[in-house]
């Protein structure tokens, strides 16, 4: 699945890191390192991370959205 975080918005609250610790990681004081291509099997965890973000910085591609839209 495809994920992107708007790092202009991100404030380093780290809620995503609690929701999906294998795919979001805070480094130093406030650098977010995240996995832009987590496995589909982790979707519920990734969507929890998205919902937990207090500044709504995480965008996740809905399942099957791009089906038939592939280049």
């Amino acid at each position, binding site marked *: 699945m495809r994920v*992107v975080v708007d790092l*202009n918005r991100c404030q*380093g609250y780290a809620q995503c890191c609690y929701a999906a610790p294998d795919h979001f990681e805070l480094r130093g*004081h*406030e*650098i977010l390192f995240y996995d*832009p291509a987590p496995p589909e099997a982790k979707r519920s965890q990734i969507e929890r991370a998205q919902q937990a973000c207090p500044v709504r910085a995480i965008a996740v591609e809905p399942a099957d*959205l791009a089906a038939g*839209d592939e280049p």
Partner: protein
Amino acid sequence: MTEVQRPGIVVVGASLAGLRGAEALRDRGYDGPLTLVGDEPHRPYDRPPLSKHVLAGELPADATALPQLTRLRAQWRLGRPAAALDRERRVLHLADGATLPYEKLLIATGARARTWPGDGADLAGIFTIRTRDDARDLRAALAKTPGRVLVIGAGLIGCEAASCCRDLGLAVTLVDPNPTPLARLLGTAIGATLAERMRGAGVDFRPKTMVRALSGEAGQVRRAHFAGGEVLETDLVIVALGATRDTGWLAAAGLAADAGGLTCDGACRAISIAGEPDSDIYAAGDVARWPNPLYGDRPMTVEHWGNAVDQARHAAANMMAAPSAQQPYRHLPAFWSSQFGLNIKLAGHTAGADALALVQGSRASHRFLAVYGKAGRSIAAVSFDEARWLPAYAEAVAAGARFPPFPDAIDQPRVERLEPGFPAARPPAHRAAPALEASHV
């Protein structure tokens, strides 16, 4: 492939701005044919991780495909650069000879990395960082443990690349003509903190230094010759000299385009060489030069992630609106950069700053928020590892607040005032009219 009844909308450029613009057209109810043209063979991908986690080897170069947020029902023409635009016949020519008719066009072709302009440009071991393939090739070369990496240019990309090299344990020299890194972006007062930080991390930072030529043996780069006469042994060179806007394909289109951008009106409509907006051609992202009402309508290009998203969505909304309902695009530039363990964020545009106030934290701790002033107004704010302070200051900057905006909101006895220390402006070599530029240089 289905037969199309009418040409519909063509989006030229299939990166962040092109994707978000195409999505916004669908979100706003556009139901006709939609075509995305991209010069790279890849579907839209995110560039910021390329100069960070991809170089560091933490992410493969092909891992950063952007999420698609709306069903596009688009025809994709990837790996086929636009070659020419014929506005009279309303046809876009692609490099492979194909022609695409259009009713409306959204131009989001972005920019290209400036390549090494001096001697030795054809040697192996010289890299730029702009595309996914650039990052893949550079990552592979870094993984072979070069003896010393030379990074030319201490803008955002150059500094991030130097940071990755140190994380990988590689010896790295970073050269820049200015006294500090990020001098044009943040001024030398703030840049000095970053210089201290990167030297602490082991970077051999050489300020006020220009590279005159690169030379090599058996086709491989081996040495850099500095303008001062010094010779540096290096076997991997990263050229981080910024980007030129991708407007070459517009050369005969009769639009006001040059290497500095495609000139637009306030509604993001492309301006013809006669000075009139073309009501069917819009532009967004790195390539678009438009009068930003937040900065007195001075023509401005903003080469940052947030502008690609916002301007593409704005242009798409105007494409769907009546000619009488075109809305001007107001944008507060912003960027982030992670390097040397620091999160650096800017909101606003520092050009012309005549004052700097440190309002939170301290430069000594490498954690602070500072505000830039110009003629008594706050024009930008920068944070080093203090991002949570930034939104309030960004709001004040967007509102044109006095400088500094909140005289009482400080965590120290008084606001520390500094000279921002911006280098003298460069001559506008690649454009006729001076324009503001918010870029990674």
